């Protein structure tokens, strides 16, 4: 066991003696993509200085819709729930200093994903999809009567490993249950876009967790994807399903990845996967890995900041 790794991760709830014990889909994905990337992101806890506009926009959007459905399920009509989440999102995208004094609007460094297009997308989504009908999609209610929204889960897998995450909403569609997830993209959304979700760690984990939490045959995930353009937002709805065998296969692969990562943690050995450096526009740690090892800390100090991503800390 590396004492160095244990020291680096001692403040994180999801780590124990340097080993990650609670895994969400993001950390599984990182470990499968590249062990060095996993190390920089999860062990050293680094993220690029410029927080991705896509993460900020996507996070605010998903939170707004999650809250919208919660307000709806608690009895608000559509217009009241929409007014609440627009106000919340306007506030969440506004900066205040440590004394609570107003600073100004959060800067979105993008031409398509801006504060205005975020609000527009929330309003347009609600106008297109919010009306629930008996033959359409409706929020599932738990046995307690509570709406199945904002479900954070931590479930025990094998070998003292916990799998955790957060389901925005579980819905009934036809006779089946689905987890619902929101995505945003600057690109046109079609078959090619939806293909990325099968196979996919996040969608498999959500389906697995949905089945385990609800003790019901959750069939998969309905993905409401929004194409954000300068002057419009266009929505497409896609469904990705998982059979029992597919879920078993994903589960075995995820546990294998976790086991490999545990061995690497013991040895403090983090090999690079050079075939993944160019994925999705390039790995954020490419500049670090491409520099000579003796000067890497300089790059890290200048281009990266600490982030507090901890799968066990509720959102």
């Amino acid at each position, binding site marked *: 066991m590396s004492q160095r790794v244990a020291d680096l991760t001692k403040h994180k709830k999801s780590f124990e003696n340097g080993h990650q014990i609670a895994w969400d889909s993001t950390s599984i994905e990182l470990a499968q993509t590249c062990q060095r990337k996993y190390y920089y992101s999860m062990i050293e806890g680094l993220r690029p200085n410029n927080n991705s506009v896509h993460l900020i926009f996507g996070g605010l959007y998903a939170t707004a819709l999650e809250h919208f459905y919660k307000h709806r399920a608690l009895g608000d009509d559509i217009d009241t729930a*929409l*007014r609440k989440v*627009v*106000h919340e999102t*306007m*506030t969440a995208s*506004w900066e205040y200093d440590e004394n609570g004094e*107003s600073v100004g*609007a959060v800067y979105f460094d993008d031409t398509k994903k801006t*504060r*205005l297009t975020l*609000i*527009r997308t929330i*309003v*347009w989504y609600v*106008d297109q999809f919010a009306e629930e009908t008996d033959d359409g999609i409706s929020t599932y209610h738990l046995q307690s009567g509570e709406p199945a929204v904002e479900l954070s889960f931590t479930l025990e897998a094998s070998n003292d490993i916990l799998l955790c995450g957060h389901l925005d909403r579980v819905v009934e569609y036809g006779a089946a249950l689905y987890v619902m997830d929101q995505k945003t993209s600057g690109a046109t959304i079609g078959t090619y876009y939806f293909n990325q979700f099968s196979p996919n760690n996040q969608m498999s984990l959500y389906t697995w967790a949905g089945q385990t939490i609800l003790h019901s045959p959750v069939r998969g995930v309905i993905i409401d994807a929004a194409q954000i353009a300068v*002057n*419009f937002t266009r929505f497409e709805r896609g469904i990705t399903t998982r059979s029992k065998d597919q879920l078993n296969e994903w589960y075995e692969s995820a546990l294998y990845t976790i086991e490999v990562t545990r061995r690497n943690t013991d040895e403090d050995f983090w090999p690079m996967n050079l075939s993944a450096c160019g994925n999705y526009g390039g790995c954020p740690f490419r500049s670090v890995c491409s520099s000579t090892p003796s000067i890497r800390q300089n790059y890290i100090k200048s281009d990266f900041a600490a982030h507090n991503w901890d799968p066990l800390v509720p959102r």
Partner: protein
Amino acid sequence: MSDVTELFHRDPLKMTNCDIDIIIAEMRKKRVMFNAAPLAAKKAAPKLTAGQEAATKLSLDIKL
């Protein structure tokens, strides 16, 4: 500066329900305009003359 542009530069904690409703109404107006645009463009497109229309048709005068 329009009402909505001004509202986007205002501290949201000082906004009223009426302010939020103005923003929502403006976004809904944009949606209606966006959805109506293809139909408006179709209506505004110049009609082909009979000669132009005939020239665009395929000849099906195939002899077997």
